[in-house]
């Protein structure tokens, strides 16, 4: 996707080039990950934009900083958790994330997709993040532990608990 993400500027050009590269490679993955986390496409787009903007700010202040995909996922996870907390406090938006799923495209509404989203709607944010980072984004438990700031065993336990919920949902729906 050849999009110009930032205005050209002499001081910002380095950060701009690096963020453009990151965005080209990860924006779709980040948006899909965030959509599963928050259950809303529009919010996911906003949060993805926030993550990329945070990356640009970070590179603007420290151009030599190595910014990896793990950093992007960590920022995205924290943004999603913050959003879910705000949503829980404000309660202005519907808490039923299945409602958002019904607004997805028809080809995305497979049984597995709906089951997964229904299970994620019941899970705490940390378990959702562990499940999505490992089985959705493809990170190992050690990499996910580094992103989430916890241990690999804790990530495996969270995946196991998320899996139990998903199994319950699948049983109920069948």
């Amino acid at each position, binding site marked *: 996707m050849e999009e110009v993400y930032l205005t050209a500027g002499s001081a910002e050009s380095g950060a701009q080039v690096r963020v453009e590269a990151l965005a080209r490679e990860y924006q779709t993955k980040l948006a899909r990950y965030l959509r599963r986390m928050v259950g809303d496409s529009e919010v996911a787009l906003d949060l*993805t934009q926030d993550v990329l903007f945070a990356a640009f700010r970070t590179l603007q202040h420290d151009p030599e900083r190595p910014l990896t995909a793990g950093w992007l996922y960590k920022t995205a996870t924290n943004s999603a958790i913050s959003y879910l907390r705000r949503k829980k406090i404000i309660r202005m938006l519907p808490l039923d994330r299945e409602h958002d799923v019904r607004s997805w495209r028809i080809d995305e509404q497979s049984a597995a997709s709906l089951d997964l989203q229904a299970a994620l709607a019941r899970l705490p944010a940390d378990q959702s993040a562990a499940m999505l980072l490992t089985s959705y984004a493809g990170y190992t438990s050690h990499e996910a532990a580094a992103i989430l700031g916890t241990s690999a065993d804790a990530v495996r*336990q969270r995946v196991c608990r998320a899996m139990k919920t998903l199994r319950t949902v699948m049983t109920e729906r069948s």
Partner: protein
Amino acid sequence: MNPTCARVESLAGAIALGEASDAERDEYRRHIAACAPCLRALGGEREIERVMSAVADARDAETWEPIVPSARDRRTRLARSAWRVGLSGVALAIVASLGLHVLLAAAVPTVRIADASVVPVLPVSGMHVTLDQRTPAPKSVAAAPPVRAVSESLVVVHNVIALKASTPANVKAARGPASATETRISTRSVVAMATSAPSNVPIWRRDAAMPVANATHAPLFAGRAESIAVAPVYVVHDVTPLGGDGAISPRPPLIAYAEGAEGTTAFEVTVDEHGAPQHCTITKSSGYFSLDGAVCAAAMHARYVPRTVNGRATPGVYRDAFTFRSQSQDDGPAIPQR
């Protein structure tokens, strides 16, 4: 939870992620075979793979290709939201201010005083106003002609009423005529000072030792032979409004015009040594809360030149009165005069 079962959760997670070694898989199988609750909750290895394959199917079926707005739009959006928040704040402040004004205008009581013994308290913003129903003091100065037309139908007449505190007649005669700014020539009485000043102060020093508050009090035996008239000792300037007589301009609420309120409101304001009004007291009510409240509010909003004794500022009292008269009941048009 059994510690072994907690360990099995970690093993099940490892199996789900495909990270379990053969030893870990054997350990999981042994525990599942012996622990029915874990078997019901987690299922066997095949069940775990079935559940996790659903996640993989959902991932593979994902076709959403999002178009993330550029960071430039993000900046514009942030700027717009900042402007929106700022404008909303300004609009909210304006609406709140208008609402407050309307509430304050509607909150002025307009009930006529039915019982003269009731001592009402008017809520005026930022000050405490008490309406005391006192015995009307005799007017020492006649009413002045109309001075100011407040609106088309109500005329405010500024009557200066000197409501002096009661003093012995002999002292009043010795002081001469009362005025807003007067120089009082006091007499010194040896007997009076001997009764009021501390005994350890010599008689010839007690004059200076007397407190200022007592200085203006009349000597008890001013007319006696041993009283000695001396040179002017206390030069007293009473409280006056800063800005002249027009400094206090009461603005009665509209309801006063509607109900044809009229009458004379006499009041007194205690003023501290800095010239700030402290307390307003209605000494003679016009019979309308609206008029009395307007007068006290105006009096409390004004600033004053404090009372001075020998050039030294002291707390004092400013007394004045306003007469409100409905123009429709007057014989002729009211011409503002003073």
